[in-house]
């Protein structure tokens, strides 16, 4: 798994590639949470999964965990570029009902309203 993190003001963009499973989920979780703790102003987390080849329930759990953290700070999570397999698991698990699903980073960022 490769993970690229970019913060722009209140937005954290996480671009993920490779496999998101039990082996990679801990690093995924820790690296994102480190940013979230360092920057309490982050209220929108955009996770780009376009280049994720594989995801299973351990990967979903790491997404759900970030959703819960964002809930605590009344923020939102956007999932971008879910491949069909990931989308199906997301629906089977109910995660798709909690997060926002977007086709592209730009459409996710466009849907991010400015902080009230």
């Amino acid at each position: 798994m490769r993970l690229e993190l970019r913060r722009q003001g209140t937005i954290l963009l996480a671009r993920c590639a490779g496999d998101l499973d039990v082996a990679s989920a801990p690093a995924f979780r820790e690296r994102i949470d480190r940013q979230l703790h360092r920057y309490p102003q982050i209220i929108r987390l955009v996770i780009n999964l376009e280049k994720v080849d594989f995801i299973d329930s351990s990967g979903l759990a790491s997404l759900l965990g970030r959703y819960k953290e964002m809930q605590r700070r009344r923020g939102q999570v956007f999932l971008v570029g879910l491949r069909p397999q990931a989308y199906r698991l997301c629906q089977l698990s109910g995660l798709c009902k909690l997060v926002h699903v977007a086709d592209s980073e730009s459409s996710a960022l466009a849907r991010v309203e400015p902080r009230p």
Partner: protein
Amino acid sequence: MFGEENHLTSAIKNQLVLEFPSMAENVGVARVAVAAFAAQLDFSLDEIEDIKIAVSEAVTNAVVHGYRDRPGLVRVAAMLTSDELVVEVADRGKGIADVKKAQEPTFSTDPERLGLGLSFINSLMDKMELRSTPGQGTLVRMSKKPQQTASAAGKV
């Protein structure tokens, strides 16, 4: 929990056995190996993805729940008949007290996890069977047949 793979109704044409220590890094190796093995039957790419997820869930369970942080070996046996893939994932870890409860969606003994692994296996494979003895280990047996009837044109 090992060596119980000899109760198939149809004849086994090919078999792959993998054994590795209980480490998260090996989950990906197991699913890739079983996927390559499964490709000997006429599975669609989507079906191969389903098999990968199912294997990943079962091996993850052996590592995460079966052995927790203790060392131990995971054994994966994949078998092909003329029209079916059977996969068994076995550990000699802590076992499951209530196998029925374990299979309920969202049931998990670990608050960090979703409790969906066994449900995913159930949804993605044709059949799943869970056998476990507390203190002895766990065996998950799953099987799947390719759905498409005609083989891909030009494939040799």
